[in-house]
């Protein structure tokens, strides 16, 4: 996403990261109990992943996060005009976003060339690469509790298969 942010910032897209609650808290990276702590963990995130995008830290109780659906890694493209939602996804995937941004650029080019265009409502079911090993390694850095919780979640899903990703 950082690479895309740099690549597309001169093409009319401003990338912003909204820092939410901890999705998989553990002893080393606990859930937030104070806003200052949330800021500290946002700084740790910024440093660890060398995030250059502006980070907006949501309120302690997650007002923005909840307004947008409260899923752990959502992605939206919001238009300059009328703040329209052009695209939304329940998980962030850079390749999917690149496709959408290229599509938006074509839309702009058509407008600039005074070519007529009408709305076209679309839906599609995307995909995202799964990197379980990397994810579980990441859980270990959150603390043993995060790993234990994840193992309990896996056992739960065996009995209750999730309909989502």
């Amino acid at each position: 996403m950082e690479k895309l942010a740099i690549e597309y910032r001169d093409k009319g897209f401003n990338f912003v990261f909204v820092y939410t609650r901890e999705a998989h808290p553990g002893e080393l990276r606990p859930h937030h109990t104070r806003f200052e702590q949330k800021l500290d963990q946002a700084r740790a995130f910024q440093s660890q992943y060398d995030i250059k995008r502006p980070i907006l830290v949501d309120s302690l109780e997650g007002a923005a996060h909840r307004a947008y659906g409260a899923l752990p890694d959502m992605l939206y493209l919001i238009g300059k005009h009328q703040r329209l939602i052009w695209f939304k996804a329940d998980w962030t995937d850079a390749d999917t976003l690149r496709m959408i941004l290229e599509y938006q650029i074509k839309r702009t080019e058509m407008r600039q060339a005074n070519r007529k265009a009408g709305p076209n409502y679309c839906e599609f079911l995307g995909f995202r690469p799964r990197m379980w090993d990397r994810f579980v390694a990441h859980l270990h850095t959150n603390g043993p509790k995060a790993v234990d919780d994840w193992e309990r979640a896996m056992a739960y899903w065996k009995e209750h298969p999730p309909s989502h990703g």
Partner: protein
Amino acid sequence: MTQDLPYNYEGYFPGEKEEEDFSRFQQTLNVGTEAPDFEATRLEDGKQVKLSDLTAQTDVVLEFGSLT
């Protein structure tokens, strides 16, 4: 079950609430509708920033997430 957990839960556990959240995501804030405005704290300088201030200038790619 997650429905009884506070927003800042101490430990992750899936459940019916999570299923509902994913299902609701597909049914609300549909494309073509207006995105809700919000205000949050910019980490860089601690200033309060509104989404509408950003979208007044450019299209905005909004990613949500955390360290964990």
